[in-house]
Structures are given as C-alpha cells and as structure tokens.
C-alpha cells in the first residue's frame, strides 16, 4: 500500500524533526507545524466561531505545542496530540468568555443561531460536478456548517475537514469512538438535508420525497 508507506515515511520524518528540535534545533519547529496550520485553525474556528478568536487560539495552541513538545512521547501521532491541544485551547477560550459574560453558556451556540438565509437555488438538473464548482454552493455549505449545533460542527470539522480518523477525533474531543460515529452521521445528515436542494441530481420520485427523510 503506497499510501500507508508514504504515511509511515512522513511520520518517521516527523519523529526525526521532533528529536532535532528537542536537541536544540528549535527553528525546525516552523517546518514541523507547517502541514498542520490549516487543521489547527479550522479546529479552533469550529469551537470559537469567529476569525479573530480562531486565529488567536490557533497561535496560542501552536505556541503551547512548542512549549510542551518535550511531553510528546510519540505514543499518539503528532497530529492527534496537536489536535487535542487545539481543542483544549478553543474550549478554554470559551470558558474565559463565559466568565467574562456571566449569562453565556458553555456552548453559546444553540439558541443563538442566526436565521438561515439560503443562497439562490441552483437548478436541480445541474450535474453535481458543475454544481460543485459554484461559489454559492460553497457559501451555502459554510453557512450550513456554521449553523450546526456545536458538538456536530466540531466532529464534522475534525473528521471531514481536518481529516482525522475516528480514533484521533475521539482522542482530541475526549469522547469514545462510537460517539464520534454517531455524531458524525448526524452532522452529515443534517448538512445533507440542508443542502439537498443544491445537490440533487435526479428528480424526486414523489413530491413528499424530502419529507420522508428520517432526520426531518
């Protein structure tokens, strides 16, 4: 399997980098973190939900990872360890906000959701590949993800955007693997339902078609 051989080579290279950084070549940390910048930012954004705070948290998480690199033992993958730090950073930020604003909840998300304003409907006969090129479809997906309840938004981000596997996502969020699968399924189905009008490539068999979905 070429993919897993590549993954093994990448993780050996990473272990080598970490050893060198800990031995004093600290400038190599720039190189170590570079492949994960996007993952760290997206993880923070899924938790804190705005660009400025997400960027602050991402920087803090990366700095924390640097300061604590000596504690990384290589039992977990570096990406999992880093994702755990990122999740904790975002959660701490929310807790600080909560203290600053006593009426906000740990998950300020539900109940405060903005009204969903759908982008203009695209023609449902459009073939998917063309549809996927459309800017408004990407905007609709961003809105739909932003409006998922927090637990679903976070799992969707870790799995489908950051591309962590089930075990890694479970470790980063501190939940079990089955919970990861259940929440991910729910998140994907909520998005599917929300975005169905943009993504249909066949005519519904009956008018009641979309009302029959189990998650309606």
């Amino acid at each position, binding site marked *: 399997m070429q993919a897993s051989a590549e993954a093994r080579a990448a993780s050996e290279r990473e272990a080598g980098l970490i050893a060198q950084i800990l031995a004093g070549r600290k400038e190599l940390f*720039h190189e170590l973190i570079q492949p994960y910048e996007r993952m760290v930012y997206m993880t923070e954004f899924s938790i804190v939900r705005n660009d400025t705070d997400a960027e602050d948290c991402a920087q803090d998480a990366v700095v924390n990872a*640097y300061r604590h690199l000596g504690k990384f033992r290589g039992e977990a993958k570096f990406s999992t360890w880093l994702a755990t730090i990122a999740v904790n950073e975002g959660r701490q930020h929310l807790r600080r906000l909560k203290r600053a604003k006593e009426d906000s909840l740990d998950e300020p998300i539900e109940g405060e959701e903005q009204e969903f304003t759908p982008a203009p409907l695209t023609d449902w006969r459009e073939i998917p590949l063309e549809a*996927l090129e459309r800017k408004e479809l990407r905007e609709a997906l*961003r809105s739909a993800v932003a409006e998922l309840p927090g637990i679903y938004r976070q799992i969707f981000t870790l799995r489908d955007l950051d591309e962590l596997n089930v075990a890694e996502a479970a470790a980063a969020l501190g939940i079990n693997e089955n919970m990861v699968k259940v929440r991910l399924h729910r998140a994907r189905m909520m998005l*599917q339902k929300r975005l169905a009008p943009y993504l*249909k490539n066949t005519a519904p068999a009956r008018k009641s078609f979309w009302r029959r*979905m189990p998650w309606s």
Partner: protein
Amino acid sequence: MELNCKHVWAQISDYIDDSVTPELREDIERHLEHCEICSAILDSTRNILVLTADDRTFELPGGFSKRLHERLERELAAN
C-alpha cells in the same frame, strides 16, 4: 438480507467511511442498485464531503500563516 430505505439511511455515514462489514456493504449495494432515493442521498452526502475537502470552501484568513510564523519566531527567540 433485504434492507429497507431506513436501514440504509442509518448506515450511510459508516458506508461512506468504509466501516461496515462486507456482508452489510453487499446488502446496501444491492439496495442502491434499485433505489433512486437512497442513491441520491448517498451521492449528495458524498458531494458535501468532496466540497468540504476542497480548500476553496473553508479558507484560511489572508496572511494567517505569515502571522503564525512571526509569532513563533518571537516565541523561539524568547524560549
């Protein structure tokens, strides 16, 4: 086993992630062959995942990487 649509809906996410047993995969595929509704749900869900993995959908703020490495630079100089 003959699956109905609800069974298939419940498995769509695991099916996409290839974490169903080979037997269940076969049952699901047999159902998909004749069920347009489930096929459309599967396709649209997959399309969402393709779109999510497209870097243009969720973008980093402009200059994010530069600012991150500048901050790191200061941290490395201090520690």
